[in-house]
């Protein structure tokens, strides 16, 4: 009797806990989107943030360019690093490199932004600039890509590795032709998740990319840029209704973009699971 009572209490608490995990996620999405619906209008896409009828065009372009830059810088570094740790590093070295890569991901993003300010913006005289923003953001994103690449490579069955080496393929050919194709969907879904996190970051950008409104001019140095998270952050602190609306719209665009990326990541992961299952002999 007592046993059943204890069990019931425990599982009730667990059920509440599950509810507490699920509810905020739904609440945030619903409230952000609901707040944004009244302010969604076509001028958001055509006007810039500082215009008399403000829009978010420059912020969206800025976010997209930052994201592209991060993919170009952090993508290859993360993927190569992950392949090295999974396939080539001596066991102990691999463990050390993985450890520090994961620790880097735990460094507070504002600290990375601050160092970006001191070293890139100030000491190298880049001023607030696109490149400083991309590098600060990349430092934050590389560990995610390294980790997902390593995990994907490790999921490829060992038999495949042995077979590739047994038929005399060189290491590079074996990785490129035999091991990478089945790992690729996993690597891509990791990239997609990294894209979601990268789009949502603000703290490392505030003092590296700066924040300025107005039409987007492409320049790696000396030019502050506008981005969605910055627009949301600064506008929500202003008292007038128009700014509040801008903040809601920016937040909603961010949420929808991230939902889209997570959904895409799910599709790719499901595909990769099927692919690896087929290979597992």
């Amino acid at each position, binding site marked *: 009797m007592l046993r059943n009572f204890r069990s019931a209490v425990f599982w009730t608490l667990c059920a509440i806990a599950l509810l507490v995990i699920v509810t905020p996620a739904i609440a945030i999405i619903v409230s952000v989107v609901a707040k944004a619906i009244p302010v969604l209008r076509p001028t958001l896409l055509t006007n810039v943030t500082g215009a008399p009828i403000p829009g978010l065009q420059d912020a969206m372009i800025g976010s997209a360019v930052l994201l592209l830059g991060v993919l170009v810088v952090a993508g290859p570094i993360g993927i190569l690093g992950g392949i090295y740790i999974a396939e080539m590093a001596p066991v102990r070295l*691999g463990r050390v490199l993985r450890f520090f*890569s994961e620790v880097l991901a735990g*460094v507070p993003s504002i600290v990375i932004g601050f160092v970006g300010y001191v070293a890139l913006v100030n000491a190298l005289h880049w001023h607030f600039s696109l490149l400083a923003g991309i590098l600060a953001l990349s430092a934050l994103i590389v560990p995610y890509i390294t980790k997902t690449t390593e995990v994907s490579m490790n999921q490829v069955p060992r038999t495949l590795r*042995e077979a590739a*080496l047994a038929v005399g393929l060189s290491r*590079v050919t074996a990785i490129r032709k035999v091991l990478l194709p089945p790992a690729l969907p996993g690597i891509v879904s990791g990239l997609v998740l990294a894209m979601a*996190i990268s789009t949502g970051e603000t703290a490392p950008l505030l003092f590296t990319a700066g924040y300025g409104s107005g039409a987007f001019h492409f320049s790696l140095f000396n030019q502050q840029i506008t981005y969605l998270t910055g627009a949301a952050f600064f506008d929500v602190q202003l008292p007038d209704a128009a700014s509040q609306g801008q903040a809601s719209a920016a937040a909603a665009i961010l949420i929808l973009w991230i939902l889209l990326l*997570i959904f895409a990541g799910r599709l790719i992961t499901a595909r990769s699971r099927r692919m690896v299952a087929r290979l597992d002999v």
Partner: protein
Amino acid sequence: MILVRRRAGGLPAGPARAAQARGRELTTADRVFQWVAGVAATLPLGALAFIAVVLVVYAFPAILYADTSFFTSTHFSLGNLYGSTLSSHNGVTAPAGAAYGAVVFIVGTLTTSVIAIVLAVPISVGGVLMLSEWLPPRLQGLLSTFVELLAGIPSVVFGIWGLTVFGPFLALHIFPALTSIGAVIPFFKGPVGFGQGLLTASLVLAIMIVPIVASTTRELVKRVPVLAHEGALALGMNRYETVRVVTLPYIRSGIIAATLLGWGRALGETLAVLLILGNIGYLPHNLYLGTSTLAAQIADTLDSAFTDPTQMAVRALAELAVLLLLISLATNFCGRLVVRRISSEALPVGRGV
């Protein structure tokens, strides 16, 4: 039911590795690729060292100027940035009236993050256990979706939600009820304000770090030996007893690790906390008032610190950043070393991936 879990992949077997170690059977392309990939894998370590060195070197004059007052004083002021008078201590000059006491930020950082982690751990573990023990496997993917979602929601969106929706809701419906605890624990005494304070920030932080603990728990629960689990059920234990006797002891050290990692995350969170707490340089006397944290102070003050002609203000913020870096490195190192015995693959990276 799969009784044997195959561990696919992994590192190549002995002979291949041995050949590689001797440097034979490697073509030129192999060597170049290995070298480039090795550099890529070392970059995070380099970045970490770079961050630490730059911060400490840059902050050094401020460390001299602030001296022990950094840890003993609640007074943080950039001083008179537009005056011509300077004050000097330990051979370092700063604007007159400059004082860099960090007690408020240290206390704010520790309180918000500790409350957050104390709430987040039981919620994450309980939720994952509920899902893995009771719900059909088809629904198991549900949790990873929500965890990914919580990990993916930008912190600025958490901040806006906490500031405009969650905070006012708490102040209206939840906090008034909590004030009755104030008779026992004075920190719960009102007034509750508008919900933009310490407790709101802690609750939002708790939601933000759920992904870290939940994804670790999920990975670990998957690894609980099936035979032990079934054995306990076969002995006539009910599911709660099985969880208590088999599952929880097995996942305990992993949870401790995830707790440390989640704590590290909560310590360093900036924008959500800044938006909700404001950046108020006073120690709060109840849980509903605004205060500040190390990260929030850095983010909020850097703009005005730029205008300090002696540059000491930015260096003082660098000192805050050094402290923040040290605490977060400590939690990360401890967290990841605790579970070295278990596969470290179970531990998430960063926000909980």
